[in-house]
């Protein structure tokens, strides 16, 4: 099977399911769930089959290149292609998406109201999420990014809790604000990019997708440029090409506004857009509301997958395309990351609502992702230390996957309790261990995974991030590691308040029935993955390490090259007082270790 | 005053006065018919301008005069203005039938 057919069918299979539900006259809610379950199950099976060795389409580990990449003409005159592909960064997230979505649909049994619309929307949502991770064309990425938005708005707004309308509109507004900034950044990058740059010759010749789409045009342009002829610039939306342009040429270094370069602005706009989705601290306030009001399965998807879109955007687009700006912003971003970690943890400590607590823990955990990415100016002998950066990135990626598993599990736990006793007040729980022993045992595992207990998945990511931060700034690493303590604090305290203790003293005690088989299997699957990743992290690293390392190497090389050859700049670094106050010197000052 | 030949500028001044009168009429009159009269004044100012611009003898740069184009424009403007007035009156009548007044200040059903 060609990769085009394979990836497209994975991507649009949920849509097919949605159509089936739509045109199935008088379908019952249970039947809806079954159809969606089969549909998402098949998608999950297909993505997991990539993991198996030996199949013709299996995903080769330890490979840095894009696999199953293909591009079809969509809007060739705007250089927009239907370009999908998998690599070490997107592949784990695709698998996570398929898995979590399947589990979320499995957990949707309690949804009885407007079941047809619910399942249609959730299936569309899955397509959108898969599309975000699969697409390698910036424009296509943006389209899928927005496609995710609409179903989510309705899923929260119709099936949510008491303040659903407020939560839904808040989510919608925050995200769309970010998307508008992203759209502007997207236009900036597109119109600044030019594939006919001679420095890209090697890339243009080697990249099969570029060859297939605009190769001849680009090569002609390059030849003409080498011969000093005037050429129309050849813009591109290809993410990989944009990365190369950012890393090999200075097309994005043009000053744009107020003395800052184009890539500075592009980074800023993109970063805000992704940070909102992530969510980072000043713009995180939509998240607790959305999580609290969303129905359980939607919370699982929201925490398990949607937040990862922000992190993915940072790793895939923000950092590789704008390396210098990334370096300029290293400290602010890192500090924001640490603040998010601490703030999220503190806020979680202060919550009385169980679901809100879990939501704030998400804020805290996603802070690690940002911190891990920000450590891009670690110096080792005048060179940017690509190893430390790769470690940070790996940690961030691992953290995303781990959080996807553990937070989905935690939200499921909360949802299970809420379905039974219709409240989430932490001080009214207690003693669940006696009433629901199996469930409690599994939840302990999930919560410990989230806490970062060694041997479970949360640990690896956090420790990688903190280690690389240590090299970047010891102070930030120390402050950041306080989060470990706080996390342990609120998780343990929660466990104590909810599961331990003598007696359940809240309302509706008679409803606290033991977990059903379905519920146990959902939690069990999640816990199994948490343990697998915890004790054998290589099972994940083997897929993403190569790509991440390559990215980090390329960026580090770019930044080192920028720093080194210029004698004058070295001079500046020694005596910053006499330097003219332009951006470059600011940059140099900032990156001084 | 009477010894100087007349130029386009003289006509433009007359046109400007008519125009201003028309605009003031449109803004101050509370009566639909009054407002329409203001419109007629404005249109007639424009027609006057066209006619003045068409006469090469009124100016130094004779070759830049509009000639017959200005006349045709003026003719069409007259015809269109008459048509517009007819429709506006029909609408005013219709309004009168529904409201028993043609005072636009009493047109308050819509928030404005």
């Amino acid at each position, binding site marked *: 099977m060609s990769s085009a057919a394979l990836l497209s069918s994975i991507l649009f299979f949920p849509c097919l399911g949605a159509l089936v539900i739509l045109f199935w006259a008088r379908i019952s809610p249970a039947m809806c769930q079954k159809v969606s379950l089969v549909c998402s199950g098949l998608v999950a099976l297909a993505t997991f089959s990539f993991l198996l060795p030996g199949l013709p389409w299996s995903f080769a580990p330890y490979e840095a290149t894009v696999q199953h990449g293909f591009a079809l003409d969509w809007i060739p005159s705007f250089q927009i292609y239907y370009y999908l592909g998998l690599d070490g960064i997107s592949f784990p997230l695709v698998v996570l998406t398929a898995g979590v979505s399947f589990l979320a649909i499995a957990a949707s049994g309690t949804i009885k109201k407007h079941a047809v619309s619910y399942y249609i929307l959730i299936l569309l949502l899955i397509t959108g999420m898969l599309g975000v991770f699969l697409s390698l064309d910036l424009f296509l990425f943006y389209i899928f990014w*927005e496609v995710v938005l609409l179903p989510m708005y309705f899923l929260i707004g119709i099936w949510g809790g008491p303040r659903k309308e407020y939560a839904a509109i808040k989510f919608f507004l925050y995200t769309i604000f970010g998307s508008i900034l992203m759209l502007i950044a997207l236009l900036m990058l597109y119109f600044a990019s030019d594939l006919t740059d001679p420095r890209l010759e090697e890339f243009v010749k080697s990249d099969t997708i570029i060859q297939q789409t605009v190769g001849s045009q680009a090569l002609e342009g390059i030849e003409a440029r080498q011969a000093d002829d005037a050429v129309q610039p050849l813009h591109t939306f290809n993410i990989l090409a944009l990365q190369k342009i950012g890393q090999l040429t200075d097309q994005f270094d043009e000053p744009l506004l107020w003395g800052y370069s184009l890539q500075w602005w592009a980074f800023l706009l993109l970063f805000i857009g992704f940070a909102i989705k992530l969510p980072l601290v000043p713009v995180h306030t939509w998240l607790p509301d959305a999580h609290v009001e969303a129905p359980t399965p939607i919370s699982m998807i929201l925490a398990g997958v949607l937040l990862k879109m922000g992190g993915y955007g940072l790793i895939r687009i923000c950092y590789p395309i704008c390396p210098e700006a990334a370096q300029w912003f290293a400290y602010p971003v890192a500090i924001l990351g640490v603040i998010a970690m601490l703030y999220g943890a503190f806020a979680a400590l202060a919550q009385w609502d169980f679901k809100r607590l879990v939501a704030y823990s998400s804020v805290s955990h996603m802070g690690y992702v940002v911190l891990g990415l920000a450590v891009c100016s670690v110096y080792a002998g005048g060179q940017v230390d690509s190893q430390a950066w790769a470690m940070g990135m790996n940690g961030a990626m691992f953290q995303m996957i781990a959080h996807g598993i553990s937070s989905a599990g935690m939200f499921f736990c909360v949802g299970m309790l809420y379905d039974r006793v219709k409240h989430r007040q932490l001080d009214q729980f207690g003693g669940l261990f006696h009433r629901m022993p199996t469930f409690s045992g599994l939840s302990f595992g999930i919560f410990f995974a989230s806490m970062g207990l060694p041997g479970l998945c949360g640990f690896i990511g956090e420790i990688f991030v903190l280690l690389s931060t240590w090299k970047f700034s010891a102070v930030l690493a120390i402050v950041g590691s306080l989060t470990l303590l706080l996390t342990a604090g609120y998780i343990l305290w929660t466990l104590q308040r909810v599961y331990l203790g003598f007696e359940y003293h809240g309302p509706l005690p008679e409803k606290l029935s033991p977990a059903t088989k379905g519920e146990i299997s959902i939690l069990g699957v999640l816990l199994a993955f948490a343990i697998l990743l915890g004790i054998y992290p290589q099972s994940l690293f083997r897929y993403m390490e190569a790509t991440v390392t390559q990215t980090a190497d390329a960026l580090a090389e770019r930044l080192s090259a920028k720093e080194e050859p210029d004698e004058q700049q070295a001079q500046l670094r020694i005596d910053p007082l006499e330097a003219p106050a332009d951006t470059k010197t600011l940059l140099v000052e900032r990156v001084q270790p | 005053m009477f010894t100087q030949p007349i130029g386009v500028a003289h006509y433009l001044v007359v046109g400007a006065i008519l125009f201003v009168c028309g605009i003031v009429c449109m803004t101050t009159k509370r009566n639909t018919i009054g407002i329409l009269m203001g419109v007629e004044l404005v249109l007639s100012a424009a027609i006057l301008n066209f006619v003045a611009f068409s006469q090469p003898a009124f100016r130094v740069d004779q070759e830049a005069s509009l000639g017959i184009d200005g006349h045709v424009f003026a003719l069409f403007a007259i015809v269109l203005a008459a048509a517009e007035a007819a*429709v*506006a009156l*029909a609408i005013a009548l*219709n309004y009168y*039938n529904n409201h028993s007044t043609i005072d636009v200040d009493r047109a308050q059903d819509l928030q404005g």
Partner: protein
Amino acid sequence: MSFYQLIVNAKWESWASTLVYLPEIVLCLTIVILLLLRLPRWGSRISSLGIALVGSVIAFVLSIPFETTAEANPEAATTAQPVSLLQEETSPNPPDIEASSEETKAYKQPGDTIFSGLIVYDGLTIFFRQLLILFVVALLILMGLTGIPDRDSGADVFTLILGATVGFSLMVSSNHLLIAFLGVEMASVPSYVLAGTLKGRRIASEAALKFALYGAGAAGVMLYGMSLMAGALGSAHLPTMAENLAQLTANGVDDRQLVLFLGGLMILVGLAFKLSAFPFHFWCPDVFEGATAEVDAFLSVASKAAAIGLLLRFAIGISGVPGEPIEAPAAVAQATSTEEAKNTFDILAISQTEATSLTFAAQADQEKTKLEEKPVTDPDSSVVPIQDLIVFLIGLMAALTTTFGNLAAYGQTNIKRLMAYSTIAHAGYLMMPVAAAVALLSKDQAGAQEAVASVVVYLIAYFFMNLGVFAIIALLRNRIRSEEIEDYAGIVRESPGLVVCFGILMFSLIGLPPLAGFLGKFWIFAALWEAGLITLLFIGGLNTFFSIFYYLRVLKVMVLSPEPDHRSPAAIPIISWPGLYVAALTVPVAILLVFWEPIRVYSLWAAADLFQ
């Protein structure tokens, strides 16, 4: 040239023009048939809707440009059938005019002017004509479905609609101020009557009265501005005006600045009124509330499309790209012998190279060589200040209009009023690329073409979105007898299909991907970025954000609010004629993005003739 020859030429021109002007002629004929059918007694038994529909469908078919082989093979064209027909008609021996000039083609093709330079027949004209006539077809079908107008007034209302459409088509193809004014009048005056279609209702007659009074005033001001502009530039023919303007500025004649400025401003007032741009938007909400939803759709889509077409013609026409070498009377009289022109333009070219910075030196050199080759038809630097002024005025107005429209929409309780403000906001979006196109005229012709193409695309999307929304409003009005937003509460439970369509249309109006509204908006933003109008780009982006609130509020009421007790049932199943009609308008909105490439090719083709 003898008098006889003059008549032969005029006759030839009229014939050749008539051939490509058939759609409008068919519309006019339909009007006459609608009138004549009242005479015989059996005439009242024939459905006037049917006649109007057939007429407009025929007009639409005719508006598809018929295939000419002339471009590919000029030899073949001369032997093509229309020519031989023409030659027989006109004179025994082929007219001198064809022998004497290479410019003359056998018959009219896209890019020519018709009716002796009064009207441009180019891609943009063809596009607008198709859009407008297609809209009329769709609107007539909608009117058949909703039952407004009733049988008595049907013939009258359809006559007015068709008459206004002829006016719109004149507006978008005008190459001459007279045609522009005639078009505006032909379009507006029937619209005033249409606003009062339900003549027994108080608010309808009030809407019509307000519309007519404000409209007449705006038309008067516009005519006054046209008189000043034409007088100062010595012609009313747009390309000639542009040429004279360029020459005036090039010769350093600056005593007419005030006249030109005031004249241009007054014309802009008239256009802004038609576009309902801030601060001349005030009629729009009142008229929309008073008129029926069907008429609102007409005013909101067709009228705005025509106004933006005229704005494009005017802004681009006056600021520097004459489409063809011109032989207008004034230009002829001015004795612009080619030598003189060359001298002026050489001076221009030199001053230009001096003015431009080093980075643009190469570009300037290129332009200079171009200027030497084709002195009349190329943009030159002397019009740059004029362009800057136009860009500033239109850009400012666009920014204010969008922002005002979006902010004022918040407090509205009536859906038609809300859509009126939404229309105002969208008019602002539509004006943005016009500013971008003018800004790019002398820098980057391809970019300017993109900007005009973005208008085309936005209008295509806008056609479906707004017609769909107003169709739903009209259909719901027939069921629940109300147009208040609060009465729409919980309507999703009665007619889910309709509300899903409504939701898609609303999200498309916001401009969210993957819907059609995004397509247009993205393109507009791209044009703004390319034109360097970053402030406008940010304002546009911010406004997209503002607009979310009120569109979502309507949707929220329809979907999330509980139903009121006292409401007549609103069930409109999607599998019924009205439901299918709405679905047919929604489906393109949902899937237009997939067919971006053909749309892009088409829109670029439509915009191309403007920049020959």
